[in-house]
């Protein structure tokens, strides 16, 4: 009995070390993940049934109300989009004048949340797209209102996403108002903390933080968080800045996987240069993509 315990413990330790240091166990993990995919489906079933039921029994007036609200929202968004087209064109022209590279548009795919991490101390979710859909490790994930996190593990039909509020996650951001750069680190709770912000920095409550694109992991310009509090403790070298993510981290069910131009800065420059030429060539500028058209 003790021998068996010892053997199992040694086996566990060996597995852990190999899993942490080498790539050899990745196929095994991926295969087991494939076999276990129905588990996510099964554990998600009660919630989906509940949602389906509440949709079935939603009253007519509620549906009409929702329909009206959505129509209004669509109208507002359409108006914004119209404006955006001219603004984008203007932006590209100005950038051409400045001889700087054009902003690239990102290609997105919609994924659905199918599971949560059971551990209360990590903030990870499982989505229904995997290596079969060309998801890759490090891929940024958004929802309708902001940055959610990045893919950390890919299985054939599912993948695991680390949320920006996890205590091991950080994202480079800048203040939208003045371009001040900072690092937003997760806290394991529901807010982010800005690391090492000098006490003379111009940052205040309500500032929108957008991804800066530095670090080449996240595309630039997506909203990340809104500053909730700025506290200056006398005697501390840095400001204590807390920010609340704009993405609905614990409510969103539909997420967007971004296929942006992941690559070295040189590759980015090359791609950007090409696209500038293409745009100069036919003088046609498209408005930013409508993510919904990618619906699989």
């Amino acid at each position: 009995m003790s021998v068996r315990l010892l053997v199992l413990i040694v086996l566990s330790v060996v597995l852990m070390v190999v899993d942490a240091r080498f790539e050899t166990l990745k196929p095994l993990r991926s295969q087991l993940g494939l076999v276990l995919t129905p588990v996510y489906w099964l554990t998600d079933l009660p919630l989906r049934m509940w949602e389906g039921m509440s949709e079935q029994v939603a009253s007519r007036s509620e549906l009409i109300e929702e329909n009206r609200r959505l129509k209004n929202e669509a109208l507002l968004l359409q108006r914004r989009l119209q404006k955006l087209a001219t603004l984008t064109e203007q932006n590209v022209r100005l950038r051409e004048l400045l001889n700087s590279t054009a902003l690239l548009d990102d290609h997105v795919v919609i994924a659905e949340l199918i599971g949560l991490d059971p551990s209360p101390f990590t903030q990870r979710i499982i989505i229904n797209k995997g290596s079969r859909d060309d998801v890759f490790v490090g891929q940024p994930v958004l929802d309708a209102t902001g940055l959610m996190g990045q893919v950390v593990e890919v299985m054939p039909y599912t993948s695991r996403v680390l949320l920006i509020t996890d205590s091991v996650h950080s994202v480079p951001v800048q203040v939208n108002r003045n371009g001040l750069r900072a690092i937003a680190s997760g806290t394991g709770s529901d807010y982010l903390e800005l690391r090492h912000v000098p006490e003379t920095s111009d940052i205040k409550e309500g500032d929108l933080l957008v991804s800066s694109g530095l670090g080449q992991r996240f595309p630039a310009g997506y909203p990340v968080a809104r500053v909730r509090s700025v506290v200056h403790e006398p005697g501390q070298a840095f400001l204590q800045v807390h920010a609340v993510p704009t993405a609905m981290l614990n409510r969103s069910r539909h997420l967007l996987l971004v296929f942006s131009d992941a690559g070295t800065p040189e590759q980015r420059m090359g791609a950007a240069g090409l696209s500038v030429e293409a745009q100069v060539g036919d003088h046609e500028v498209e408005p930013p993509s409508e993510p919904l058209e990618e619906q699989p």
Partner: protein
Amino acid sequence: MSAERPNNGWVIWATFVVALLLSVAPLPGNLDLLRPLWLGLVAAFWALTLPHRGGMTMAWCFGLLLDVLSGNLLGLNGIPLALIVFLVLNLQQRLRMFPIWQQAMVLMVILGIAQLVLLWLNTLAGNRPPTLLFLVPVLTSAILWFWLYLALQWLRRRFDVY
């Protein structure tokens, strides 16, 4: 006792699978903090009632599956689960004489030890929980033991597992 042929082993498998499902099922809000250690409880029950079936390797294998499902290092959950079975097997002759509430007390200590080992391994793996809240599931598990014991005992008699 150990000379008997195993009967209806699939019931044991089924309870383990259900425990695995329950330990990854999404829970609303902060209820995650209270989630009982389902796999540990089920493994402890079978080790207690059918010691000749062992079950240490089985518990370890389900620990492996839990690792895959929750994205931990492979083998992380295996050690505490094997440890739970080991401790219960060692104490089972005494534990069987105890009334259920006393069993729950001893089990609380055993599960607590397992959680501490898990904390230690998690720290080695680099994600240390910032609080002592990881001990709360031990409490809920001990409270749950009463009902779980009765339910599984009924199941065992119903399907005549030995």
